[in-house]
């Protein structure tokens, strides 16, 4: 399959890339979502601006209070990062389960969240981690709280002419004690249902909890009812069972040939419990 014709431009920096976009340009990161879409002609930009060689946004750096993951960091580089494994293990767990090694070697975290596939793993993990998305545009830089980033079906707060330069993950008690669990579509390994859970325990009881789902609805979301139900209680199997009710309440649950609405609703609760029980 051959994409429609476009002009390819290789950007040397993020500022370069923003300048190259023009009216009909699109950013190419690792290309693991965009290139298949171009081949199926679901997408046909006039200009494709490649940021896959911009080294400045590929790194993972440990700052005192947070870890910054470059927008161009590959899933494989996140999967093998020791700092993240200690500060926010759910990121490493999720990265290891994305697609397959070939996809993980090219695909990037920035590309994934810009694409915002409703079944992608990163949106749930980043919601649970209380991340900040660092964005650059022609006027400068801005930061978007992850809770304001995912807007709907393949829709985000990212605007025309903007590039995700990094994701900042706070070094918090809840991120240190975090886990990801998913029910995989066996061929693509996208999440039919995925849950990221991060729980801060202080003095034997839950001080703060963040629980987020992906694969369930038009975009990833936090389950605040579960988060609230856990606070102030010991994290035990019984308390997890009691706290996790219908985690799809108020959501339009997807139905497809992998999982019906009813089955997916059931799976969502099962995987919310499994993610939390990984923290026991």
């Amino acid at each position, binding site marked *: *399959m*051959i*994409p*429609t*014709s*476009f*002009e*390819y431009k*290789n950007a040397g920096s993020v500022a370069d890339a923003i300048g190259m976009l023009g009216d009909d340009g699109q950013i*190419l990161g690792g*290309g*693991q979502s965009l*290139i*298949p879409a*171009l*081949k199926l002609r679901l997408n046909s930009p006039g200009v*494709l601006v*490649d940021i*896959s*060689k911009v080294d400045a946004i590929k790194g993972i750096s440990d700052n005192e209070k947070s870890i910054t993951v470059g927008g161009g960091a590959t899933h*494989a580089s996140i999967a093998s990062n020791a700092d993240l494994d200690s500060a926010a293990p759910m990121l490493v767990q999720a990265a290891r389960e994305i*697609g*397959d*090694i*070939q*996809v993980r*070697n*090219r695909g990037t975290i920035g590309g994934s969240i810009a694409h915002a596939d409703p079944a992608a793993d990163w949106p749930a993990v980043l919601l649970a981690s209380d991340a900040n998305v660092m964005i650059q545009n022609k006027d400068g830089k801005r930061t978007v709280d992850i809770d304001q980033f995912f807007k709907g079906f393949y829709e985000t707060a990212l605007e025309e002419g903007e590039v995700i330069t990094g994701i900042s993950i706070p070094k918090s008690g809840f991120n240190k004690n975090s886990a990801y669990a998913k029910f995989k579509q066996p*061929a*693509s*390994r996208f999440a039919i249902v995925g849950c990221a859970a991060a729980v801060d325990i202080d003095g034997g009881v839950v001080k703060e909890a963040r629980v987020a789902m992906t694969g369930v609805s038009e975009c990833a979301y936090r389950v605040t009812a579960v988060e609230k139900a856990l606070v102030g209680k010991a994290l035990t199997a019984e308390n997890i069972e009691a706290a996790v009710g219908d985690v799809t309440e108020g959501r339009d649950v997807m139905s497809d040939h992998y999982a019906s609405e009813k089955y997916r609703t059931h799976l969502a609760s099962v995987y919310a419990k499994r993610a939390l029980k990984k923290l026991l």
Partner: protein
Amino acid sequence: MANKISVTVNGTTHTGEVEGRVLLVDYLREHLSLTGTHIGCDTSSCGACTVHVDGKAIKSCTMLAAQADGASVTTVEGLSSNGELHPIQEGFKEEHGLQCGFCTPGMMMTATDLLKNNADPSEQEIREALEGNFCRCTGYHNIVKSIQYAAKKMATTA
């Protein structure tokens, strides 16, 4: 719309012009006549098109040739040296790791990437590493044995 690229493939540097939309797999097969790299599903699923770019296994149907400018690419044709089979090729021959052979180039490229990072993988680790490579003949059993053969051979000759 043409892009000037310079790509080192199996040690030889090729310079040429490609349209932006040319996929790396088509560049290898059509422009360089290296037809060992196969196009299977053409949807980033089957792994028959796996090659190494700068030492890492990737799906060449899901990368543009223009993106490989300046990169070093290894295809299945680059595995053997001085007329001698690479241990992974020998393994597939000895352990009957192929039937129709269509998936074999991709299997071998993923396997060599695995063995570079993990010289003594368990059976489970081998099976997990092959997640992105489909075989519709063998049931994978002999492919796993072929990779174990190569790991053993590489350990004794290293």
